[in-house]
C-alpha cells in the first residue's frame, strides 16, 4: 500500500542523519514475528527466573570472535558481572557464550559448553531460533532460581 508513496526522496539527509522510517530495516527481516516472540519470551523468562541478565546477539562478529563477544558482553548491561551474552554468528558458524564473574559462579563453563553443544546441533540443522531457545532453557535450568527471587 505504502509502496506507491515511496517516491524518490528529496530530503537533505547526510551521513549523520538518523534513518527515516522508510529506510529502517523491517522488524521481521531476520526472524518472523512468531520467532521473535519466542526469543523474547525465552530471554525474558530465563532472565527473570535466574536473576541473571541474558542477552542475545545475532550477527557478524569481528575476528577473533571471542574478543569481540567479550567486548559486547562488557557493554551488555549495568552489571556485566551478572550478564550472560549469547553471540550467534550464522555467517561464521560460531556461537560464543560469555558469562561475567558473578554469572560464572552459577553457570560453570562445562554447563555453558553443554548448552552450546545443543545449540550447535540445532544450528547445524538450520534451526536458529529453536537452538537459541533450547540453549537458553538449558542455561537457565543450570543457573537455577535463587532464594532471593522467590516471593
Amino acid at each position, binding site marked *: 500500500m505504502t509502496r506507491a508513496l515511496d517516491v524518490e526522496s528529496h530530503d537533505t539527509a547526510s551521513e549523520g542523519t*538518523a*534513518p527515516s522510517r522508510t529506510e*529502517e*530495516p523491517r*522488524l521481521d*527481516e*531476520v526472524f518472523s514475528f512468531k520467532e*521473535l*516472540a519466542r*526469543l*523474547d519470551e525465552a530471554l525474558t523468562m*530465563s*532472565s*527473570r527466573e535466574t536473576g541473571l541478565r*541474558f*542477552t*542475545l*546477539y*545475532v*550477527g*557478524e562478529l*569481528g575476528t577473533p*570472535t*571471542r574478543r*569481540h*563477544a567479550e*567486548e*559486547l558482553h*562488557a*557493554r551488555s*548491561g*549495568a*552489571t*556485566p*558481572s551478572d550478564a550472560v551474552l549469547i553471540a550467534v554468528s*550464522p*555467517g*561464521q*558458524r*560460531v*556461537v*560464543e*557464550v*560469555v558469562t*561475567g*564473574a*558473578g554469572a*560464572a559462579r552459577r*553457570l*560453570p*563453563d562445562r554447563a*555453558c*559448553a553443554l*548448552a*552450546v*553443544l545443543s*545449540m550447535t*546441533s540445532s544450528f*547445524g540443522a*538450520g534451526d536458529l531460533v529453536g537452538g537459541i531457545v533450547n540453549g537458553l532453557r538449558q542455561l537457565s535450568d543450570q543457573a537455577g532460581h535463587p532464594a532471593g527471587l522467590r516471593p
Partner: protein
Amino acid sequence: MFDAEWYLVFAGIPLAIVAVLALLTLRPGKDRRPRYKPGQPWQHAPVWFEPHPAHVGGGSEHGPAAAHGPAAVPGSGTAALGSSMYPEQPGERALESGHGSGPAVATGTARPVGGATAASVPPPAGPLGGARGTW
C-alpha cells in the same frame, strides 16, 4: 482398453492430485523468508536482543510499563513495538569503529539500574567464563 476414459482415470486423476499438492506446498507464500542454511553467508544487520525489564510494583501487567519508558534506541524517539529488538544504528557503528566493539544497547529508563550506554562505562565483569562452539 486404453481409451480416453482409461487415460483420464489412471493418468489424469493422479496428475491432478500431484498438481494440487504441488500448488499447496510450493505456492509463493505470503510470509516466506529465506530459511537459514548452514554455510550460507549472513547478510543481515547485527541485532541485539535483551530481556524486558522486570516490572517493579504497580503499572499494568501488559505491554511495556510506563515507568520504564518505551524501549528505545538511543538518540531516537521511536520505540520498539512490544519487542526487545534493537536494530543496530549506523551512527553507533561509525562511532565505535575506532574501538572495534559492537552496538550499544540502551533501555530508555529512569531507574538508576537500567541498560548501559556507550557513555556510561560499567564496572569490569571480572574473569569471564563461557564456551564457544562451531557448526
